[in-house]
């Protein structure tokens, strides 16, 4: 056992990298759920974004184009879900599950010729001045642009939901679509926009795995990250900052347990492997244990089918 081999600075820096895919997917799903839609297809949209981003990134050798393509691909796939559930009024749970299976299958097909290829390198962007701070610099300010973007999306989501009129309307639609409709808001359009945003975020998160974190393509490489993102949204009581905390907690423990495995700690590998899932959910469950308060934050119309009666 060699715990001295674990470099805390490197550990914390890679924590943020490990957490970013889940963070992106979760913040997108938070917006979708706040609008009253339950999209269980996060995993499918992530893996579809992962292959779309990887293909475009490899073919153009421009990772940023890959990310743009991934966001677009995620949004397009989410529109399949959007049209089925919002226009054709299909069941959201069943459609979301189908979307996950569809995304996994489609990405495996598209990725046939891309196994074993290395992704183009995404250059890190060192924040001027701040990157040179000892300890904090390498942990926080020497990352790729998408990681900064993910944190920016969390901040923006928080501010928009809390302070802007668009955010208020989004929350209103998620709270009671009938009342929102009676006031003249376009419930279906608002929900479709939220679903597309969620899809784009999930696509970005998926591409982050295939272009930066791993970085290559393997079938089924998201390995349940989409499901963890879904769980984080619920246990974070639909609060953006708690989503950030949940994602980083998960990422942190995931990185730590890999380091512990490498260091040869005398704990069964299975327990180490499951630890990120267990601990993340445990912490967030304890934080949201006041049921009455958590229920207050939950979108009351979540998962309910909206059909204008007149």
């Amino acid at each position, binding site marked *: 056992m060699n715990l001295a081999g674990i470099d805390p600075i490197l550990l914390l820096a890679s924590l943020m990298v490990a957490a970013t895919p889940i963070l992106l997917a979760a913040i997108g799903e938070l917006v979708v759920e706040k609008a009253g839609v339950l999209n269980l297809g996060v995993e499918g949209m992530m893996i579809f974004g992962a292959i779309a981003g990887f293909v475009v990134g490899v073919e153009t050798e421009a990772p940023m184009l890959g990310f743009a393509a991934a966001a677009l691909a995620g949004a397009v796939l989410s529109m399949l879900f959007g049209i089925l559930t919002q226009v054709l009024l299909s069941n959201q749970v069943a459609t979301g599950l189908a979307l996950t299976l569809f995304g996994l299958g489609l990405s495996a097909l598209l990725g046939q010729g891309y196994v074993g290829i290395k992704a183009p390198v995404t250059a890190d962007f060192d924040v001027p001045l701040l990157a040179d701070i000892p300890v904090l610099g390498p942990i926080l300010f020497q990352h790729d642009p998408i990681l900064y973007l993910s944190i920016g999306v969390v901040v923006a989501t928080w501010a928009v939901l809390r302070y802007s*009129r668009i955010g*208020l*309307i989004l*929350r*209103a639609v998620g*709270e*009671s679509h*009938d*009342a*929102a409709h*009676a*006031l*003249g*808001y376009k419930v279906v359009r608002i929900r479709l926009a939220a679903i597309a945003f969620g899809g784009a975020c999930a696509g970005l998160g998926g591409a982050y795995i295939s272009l930066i974190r791993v970085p290559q393509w393997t079938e089924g490489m998201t390995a349940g990250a989409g499901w963890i993102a879904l769980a984080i949204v619920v246990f974070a009581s639909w609060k953006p900052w708690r989503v950030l905390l949940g994602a980083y907690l998960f990422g942190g423990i995931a990185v730590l347990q890999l380091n512990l495995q490498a260091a040869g700690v005398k704990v069964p590998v299975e327990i180490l492997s499951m630890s990120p899932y267990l601990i993340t959910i445990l912490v967030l469950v304890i934080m949201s244990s006041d049921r*009455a308060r958590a*229920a*207050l*934050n939950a979108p*009351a119309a979540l998962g309910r089918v909206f059909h204008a009666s*007149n």
Partner: protein
Amino acid sequence: MTGTDMLLEIDGLTKAYPGVVANDAVSFQVRRGEVHALLGENGAGKSTLVKMIYGLVRPDAGTMRLADAAHEPSEPRAARAAGVAMVFQHFSLFEALSVAENVALGMESPPPMRTLSARIAEVSEAYGLPLDPDRLVGDLSAGERQRVEIVRCLLQDPKLLIMDEPTSVLTPQEVEILFHTLRKLAAEGTSILYISHKLEEIRVLCDKATILRHGKVVASCDPREKSARQMAEMMVGASFLAPARAKGAKGAPVLEVAGLSLTSANPFGTSLKEVSFSVAAGEVLGIGGVAGNGQDELLAALSGEALVPAGQVSLKGQAMGRLGPVARRRAGLCAAPEERLGHAAAPDMSLTENAALTGITRQRLARNGFIDWSRARGFAEQIIAGFDVRTPGPENAARALSGGNLQKFVIGREVLQKPAALIVNQPTWGVDAAAAAAIRQALLDLAAGGAAVVVISQDLDELLEISDRFAVLNEGRLSAPRPAEGLTMEEIGLMMGGAHGMHEAHMHAV
């Protein structure tokens, strides 16, 4: 009539839905500063008409003019811009949002939140409807929620204010305050289109009434010159019988509730606190109170949907508290909840299946664990015949029935099981006058046959008509039951807690 005197002119407005003409060439006018009543039974087309004025529904034919300009709103936003505001029957409010946020959602270009909060406080005080802009709507009483809707409308300086059944959730004192506000608005030149089927209120408040039946204007009158009875007959198009009750001696106590307390399962619900009462054989106990004061919780505790300590509910001395709905039915304690579709009846199942769902125990519709469908069908047919349920047959889905017909079916299903005690919640909510009279008569007949009947309702006139004793649920507590005969509205209002938290404004208003 000159155009300048009229605010709203409606001419030949028609709207048809598949299978039904909701509005058939409806024409009427509303003057500036007039309080105009729109009267009619459920399904007469009142709601469709105001939805067209508010831009939620587009007419098939006909024209509307508002303040001498063509009024063709394509969406509520356009109607609001033209000066039309609407207070909805089922509140269009968001429980998890604050008062200020709710108001902002109903405005076109709301000012920043801080300015808006100040405006809400100011306007609500000026009209005697005080409101705290930062409170969550979910924590407000029904009367206060309605104030939020009214203030939201007032902030837009409407020319025409539409109110859809505004008083169904208010105590008599709150109604008085509302009328004071409406009169003040009318005096300032705002026209009010007031939808209701409470005729006495219309006689007190309105200058003019237009009466709709089956989508057509059948009459218009000055409500102050007509009696409530005359207007009711114009609405229904026929005279109908008021329920008759037989005076009989009361028997021994059947249903006894002692110190019943229940924490609500709903975060915005009301918990029951120490509710006690007893109902004798042959007696009807009426329980009034504004919606959301524990009615749903009381029904759940009595029906067995919510379990309580054994001794808190007992039937003929037998403890019922720990028994579920099926066991309570077997013992003779039946219940019919408020929500017809989805609670009292399964919407997509046939009437036969719905009859079997609650009748299976007492009517012996199952043999060796298998449903006896011919008996179940027979039971459904018995209900349909006995309660004049208008439907092609028992194989029809519950959803296909109109509200009044399904309500007759749901009540009839329980009454025919000959329960020792029956609990009903809002038995005639949204039911037309003739069906309501039939349901009330059935409840009275059941009591006359020796059952104990508990009627939970928000319709005070109904409760006074059929109850022997009357009590009020207020914030989860039940007042001591009093003999219903001779109770005045004033006394009932005080039992209901007066005007919730607004005594000061009330004094100011009188």
